[in-house]
């Protein structure tokens, strides 16, 4: 319990520090939002007036706190590109990205862990898993995306090429299948490697022999000693995986032309629409920190030694 509170506290602090750093960095970025708002014909005085109005001349920390205050209420400012509130811009796209990431996460859990466990249940498959995982990990997400489009959309015609869909949830998921696979690919390989290594190590563990010597049936030993212990590093990886997926969605959304927050981020950087960049960065940082904190907590729940170590 104490551990959980400390982890949450740490997460909060990290979010604040990280967002402050991002805020500070972006304030250094080229481009003056006041000038952009004022237009081409504006005089220096009117630009200055707008700057005062927007509060751009206040010190950094004050601006940061003001922004943070607004952010907590959902007010992220205005988008320069689309002339609408950032909040309303992000809301629908957030859903799309969420579906994509969760879909990919599910695929990774099923196929990544599954592949990792395969050699334990079927010994000869060991080399196969090593090779497949080794290749999968080397394929960058954007390359996977294009290969999948080439093979499954263009050649075989099984999936639509464009990922946009206005249909119901089922239709949206169908359109997001290829992108989700592209996103999940390298992480599935990574999780498979970790799972296999972890299970292998546990199978050789001396406590496994002890349990067998006590007459515990091999199936139970596998479940309660091998799997149980192997799940610890896998759960730790889950958080990292989630964070990586969130980052990878930026690439996948761009590759497939999906209207999520990832592709919006890229467009906004090019368009110097910094309020949007800031807002999306915050969302991503919060998501990363939540993911890693959750897996941290799960790790502590599964391994009592972690709880003991951290509290000393």
């Amino acid at each position, binding site marked *: 319990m104490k551990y959980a509170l400390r982890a949450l506290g740490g997460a909060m602090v990290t979010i604040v520090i990280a967002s402050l750093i991002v805020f500070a960095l972006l304030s250094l970025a080229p481009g003056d939002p006041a000038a952009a708002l004022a237009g081409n014909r504006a005089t220096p005085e009117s630009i200055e007036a707008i700057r005062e109005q927007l509060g751009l001349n206040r010190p950094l920390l004050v601006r940061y706190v003001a922004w943070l205050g607004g952010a907590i209420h959902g007010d992220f400012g205005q988008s320069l590109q689309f002339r609408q509130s950032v909040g309303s811009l992000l809301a629908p796209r957030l859903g799309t990205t969420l579906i994509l990431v969760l879909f990919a996460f599910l695929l990774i859990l099923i196929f990544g862990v599954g592949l990792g466990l395969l050699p334990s249940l079927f010994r000869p498959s060991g080399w196969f898993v090593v090779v497949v995982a080794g290749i999968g990990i080397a394929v960058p997400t954007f390359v996977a995306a294009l290969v999948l489009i080439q093979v499954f959309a263009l050649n075989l015609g099984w999936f639509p090429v464009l990922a946009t869909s206005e249909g119901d949830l089922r239709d949206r998921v169908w359109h997001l299948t290829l992108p989700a696979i592209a996103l999940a690919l390298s992480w599935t390989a990574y999780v498979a490697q970790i799972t296999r290594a972890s299970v292998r190590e546990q199978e050789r*563990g001396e*406590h496994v022999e002890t349990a067998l*010597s*006590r*007459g*515990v049936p091999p199936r*139970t030993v596998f479940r309660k*000693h091998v799997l149980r*212990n192997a799940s610890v590093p896998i759960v730790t990886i889950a958080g990292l995986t989630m964070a990586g997926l969130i980052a990878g969605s930026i690439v996948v959304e761009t590759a497939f032309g999906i209207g999520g927050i990832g592709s919006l981020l890229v467009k906004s950087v090019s368009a110097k629409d910094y309020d949007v960049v800031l807002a999306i960065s915050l969302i991503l940082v919060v998501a990363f920190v939540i993911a890693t904190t959750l897996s941290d907590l799960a790790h502590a729940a599964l391994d009592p030694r972690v709880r003991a170590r951290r509290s000393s």
Partner: protein
Amino acid sequence: MTTPLLTLEHVSLEIPVDGELRRVVHDVSLHIMPGESVGLVGESGSGKSMTARSIMRLTRREWVTGGSILFGGEQVLTMDKSRLQRLRGSQIAMIYQDPRAHTNPVRTNGDSLLEGMLAQGIPKSEARARAVSLLADVGIPDGERRMNQYPHELSGGLLQRIMIAAAISTTPDLLLADEPTTALDVTTQEEVIAILNEQRSERGLSLLLITHDLDLAAAVTDRIAVMYAGVLLEVGSSADLHERALHPYTVGLLSSRPEIGSRERIRTIPGRPVSAFEVGPGCVFASRCTHVVEHCLVERPELRNVNGREVACHQIEEIQSHKSASPEVPS
């Protein structure tokens, strides 16, 4: 004449290292009667641990390359999976050298303690009650609390006692104890051995004690088998063997212990201990023996009866006659 509980006949073990098979145990024959305690004494690398583990087939099946292992008249090496599972725990139980390495760190002590009994089909509540009483027997009064704790919260000595309790919880007939006190400090060693011995005699269990400490074996066991390089060199009653060792190796072992108060140089056996696969055709001890003759290098001596002791040495009579001719001054 009762039948032995455990019989090893001409057991040989080979393990694969770097792609080739290496012999670690060669033609070992040994038996243990019901209620008897036997010590298997040898240095590290002598193959004694592997021998013990093979009794319950905890080594890979394909590593036992010869001989037979009979428990209660049944052939262990050909038992099917379910019979083997019943053998383990319910009939034979093992206590390991390093309790911390052999306990699952993410599960409670209670889980470890109960798993054997649960595998036997004993209901959880009854198993828990038995566990608490067993913990009391091995000198842990607050059993309930300890069972809810994790292994990293306990000292090595406590963990070893829990391992002993777990071993007897499944009511075996034979206990295999692999260097049960080596990983512990000296004071704890005495306590743990005392507990082990007490539980054994109270329940009438047989014991195979594996150790490198000849004195310990002599104190605790009825018979001793001395192993070197995977081969048995001398087997006999503990008291006898300890007082009057016959095989040059055993003599060397006994005389190489430092005595408190003695300021003499420790007598060591020249050379280093070897493993079974490093030895040629002759006697395994030939390279370090001070009584070696040509014949020793050519033919491996079998265990033969010499005045009620089993000894594997060609030169025993020679050595004995030399001794009586010119008695050595005892040191």
